């Protein structure tokens, strides 16, 4: 039997799980626990980078668990999009873990209670997220969601203080409700088609009548919409996230809503392609952007403000998803990766600000740029990145999405383009307000400053930095800032990669072939190709500025091996990848 690295995909879920078990077994020994947790995550990251480079060349790959063939057994599918999400999410979780370890060491107190549950729960969260990214059937997706949601309930209410319990109850009830909705949809889909396998569903759902399809489609979108915090369903997020400890909030804000978006993109492209409800999605996207950012402007607390910008920027992703063009989807994929990194970084920096200044309320902050220039840089770069100032990656992603909107050229996409630019400017306003008040103004100008901010001399203040901002916490944050900058430096190869991923997803045949085998797909290939070319705006890469986007190996072409240009260009990208990984 031939040895294939991609067959080790399930390990991305299993390693964190086993790590969690071992970490739990060693609950008496904090040092061992930490070592196990960090070790498990490092192995996962390495494995996933290997998987990414394999998928970069080889395209979509499916693993049939226990050897049961596709529609009957459980499949795990890794395609370019899933691989990218896996790598980004694992690197993020590793950095946040290091930050949490640093924080634990700095605070020198045993807040773990009778059993240390933070590290094992954290690993279970990672396992759940990986499982959701890799799930090849709807029910496994549901299980993945439940695994990381259960872990998130525990992490959110860590310590069991009053504020956390209050926030936790809302969060848990809302999440359970959305899970129930998801489960109902799975039940209905099974009743309608007799399968829960995503690839199989993709073929069978088209045979249903349009009304049933639409109902299932909307129910699924509502269930994922709650998890992804899309506008009318996002009310729970700003109430629950900010109360958790800084590392927990950071990883929640970065990852959990993005898993919802991932599920939306996956089902939208695979199960319900077409533009039946794109206009509705775009209206929702515009409202999410505008309402979210207006909410952010009303907040005085940095954590709450960031939670609202999180909601608002989910709007960009929904917009990119609703475009149904390769350029829009490519930009969306890039933007998801960028946004995971940037949102996590900002929450970590806010944690640092809170430690240094004793509060995260901008009305009470002042003079931080003078006291700690390092902190100022760590805040400034991701903040500008979030607002989408060139040349940062936020700009690249937004530019791509807006280009997609302009290419489509209808009144609704122009409205959306306008809303995107407006949201970007308002985001800038929101972060600049924090910058101007917290960092730029003098500490003496603050009305009721925290005592810790007023020091006799600058030397005193700088001395306090050493105690309050330990390098074990600053280093992981700086690492993430560097990673977000790497998104700009390697924007070219990454965009190429996203483009290939988007093309794969719109064509659908790579995914279906990987899961169901070629013979099954051959019968419907004509239909699929015709359908896709019919509605995706720019599946042909001949449009403006796409000339350098070398054509990717596509199954739309009659012979796959004939496309030498595509594979060589992927090779060039590949050489950049280790540099990218090393940078992080």
């Amino acid at each position: 039997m031939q040895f294939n690295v991609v067959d080790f995909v399930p390990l991305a879920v299993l390693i964190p799980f086993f790590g969690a078990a071992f970490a739990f077994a060693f609950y008496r020994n904090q040092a061992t626990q930490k070592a196990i947790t960090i070790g498990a995550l490092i192995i996962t990251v390495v494995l996933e980078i290997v998987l990414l480079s394999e998928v970069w060349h080889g395209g979509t790959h499916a693993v049939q668990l226990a050897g049961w063939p596709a529609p009957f057994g459980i499949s795990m599918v890794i395609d370019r999009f899933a691989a990218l999400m896996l790598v980004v999410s694992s690197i993020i979780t590793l950095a946040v873990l290091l930050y949490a370890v640093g924080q634990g060491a700095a605070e020198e107190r045993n807040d773990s209670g009778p059993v240390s549950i933070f590290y094992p729960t954290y690993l279970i969260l990672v396992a759940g997220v990986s499982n959701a990214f890799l799930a090849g059937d709807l029910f496994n997706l549901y299980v993945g969601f439940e695994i990381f949601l259960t872990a998130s309930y525990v992490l959110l209410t860590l310590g069991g203080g009053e504020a956390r319990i209050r926030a936790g109850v809302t969060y848990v009830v809302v999440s359970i409700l959305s899970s129930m909705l998801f489960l109902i949809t799975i039940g209905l889909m099974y009743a309608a088609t007799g399968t829960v396998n995503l690839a199989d569903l993709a073929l069978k759902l088209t045979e249903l009548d349009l009304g049933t399809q639409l109902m299932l489609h909307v129910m699924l979108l509502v269930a994922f919409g709650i998890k992804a915090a899309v506008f009318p369903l996002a009310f729970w997020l700003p109430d629950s996230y900010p109360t958790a400890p800084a590392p927990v909030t950071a990883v929640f804000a970065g990852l959990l809503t993005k898993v919802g978006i991932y599920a939306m993109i996956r089902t939208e492209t695979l199960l319900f392609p077409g533009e039946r409800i794109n206009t509705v999605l775009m209206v929702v996207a515009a409202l999410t952007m505008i309402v979210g950012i207006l909410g952010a402007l009303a907040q005085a607390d940095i954590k709450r403000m960031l939670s609202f910008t999180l909601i608002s920027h989910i709007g960009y992703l929904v917009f990119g998803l609703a475009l149904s063009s390769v350029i829009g989807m490519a930009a969306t994929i890039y933007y998801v990766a960028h946004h995971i990194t940037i949102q996590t970084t900002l929450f970590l920096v806010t944690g640092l600000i809170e430690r240094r200044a004793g509060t995260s309320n901008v009305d009470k902050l002042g003079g931080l740029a003078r006291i700690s220039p390092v902190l100022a840089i760590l805040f400034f770069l991701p903040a500008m990145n979030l607002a989408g100032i060139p040349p940062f990656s936020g700009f690249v992603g937004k530019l791509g999405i807006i280009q997609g909107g302009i290419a489509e050229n209808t009144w609704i996409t122009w409205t959306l383009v306008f809303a995107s630019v407006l949201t970007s400017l308002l985001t800038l306003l929101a972060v600049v307000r924090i910058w101007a008040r917290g960092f730029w103004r003098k500490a003496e100008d603050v009305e009721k400053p925290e005592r810790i901010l007023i020091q006799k001399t600058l030397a005193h203040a700088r001395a306090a930095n050493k105690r309050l901002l330990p390098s074990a916490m600053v280093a992981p944050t700086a690492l993430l800032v560097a990673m977000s900058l790497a998104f700009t430096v390697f924007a070219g190869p990454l965009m190429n990669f996203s483009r290939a991923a988007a093309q794969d997803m719109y064509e659908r045949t790579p995914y279906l072939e990987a899961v169901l085998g070629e013979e099954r797909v051959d019968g419907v290939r004509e239909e699929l190709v015709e359908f896709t070319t019919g509605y995706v705006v720019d599946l042909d890469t001949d449009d403006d500025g796409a000339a350098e986007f070398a054509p990717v190996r596509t199954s739309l072409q009659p012979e796959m091996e004939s496309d030498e240009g595509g594979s060589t260009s992927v090779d060039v990208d590949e050489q950049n990848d280790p540099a990218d990984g090393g940078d992080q």
Partner: protein
Amino acid sequence: MTINLTLLIVMGAMLAIGIYLMLERSLTRVLLGIILISNGVNLLILQTAGRSGESPIVRDGLGAEDYLDPLPQALLLTAIVIAFAMVAILLALIYRSWVIARQDEVTDDEEDRRVATTIGAHDPEEDDEVGAETSEFIDSVDPATGAVRAVNPAERNRDADSDAAPGSGAHQAGES
């Protein structure tokens, strides 16, 4: 597809009552609502198997249509386990909320309330503090610490206004 009418009606009733209970402000009722909804959903998944049939072990002389579809039951089992875990964790949260704050209600978010007051949108009927529940358990032994607390209801209500003082005390004691 064949549907069992009894199961369908029971499922509908469970979902309806569950949703009604979830709209309540009392957390215990919300929990009961969640239990009902999750079991209603389980019934729904059970029904997707369609008509009843032979157990799905291959035997000679039986056609594919004679067997029962076993997959929904497999999904159902997983769903039951997950719902069980959810209910357990929610119950723990509700109990903790009761131990700390002595109330069983969904409370308003403080920041929301702050924003509402700054723009003058405070509605006394809707937004006033929910009075803490009076109960015969209040004066008994605190289960978290073992300390005996003796607070008369009038005093306790005043404390509830000033950030639930006895509750936070119990909380600190519980953590140490």
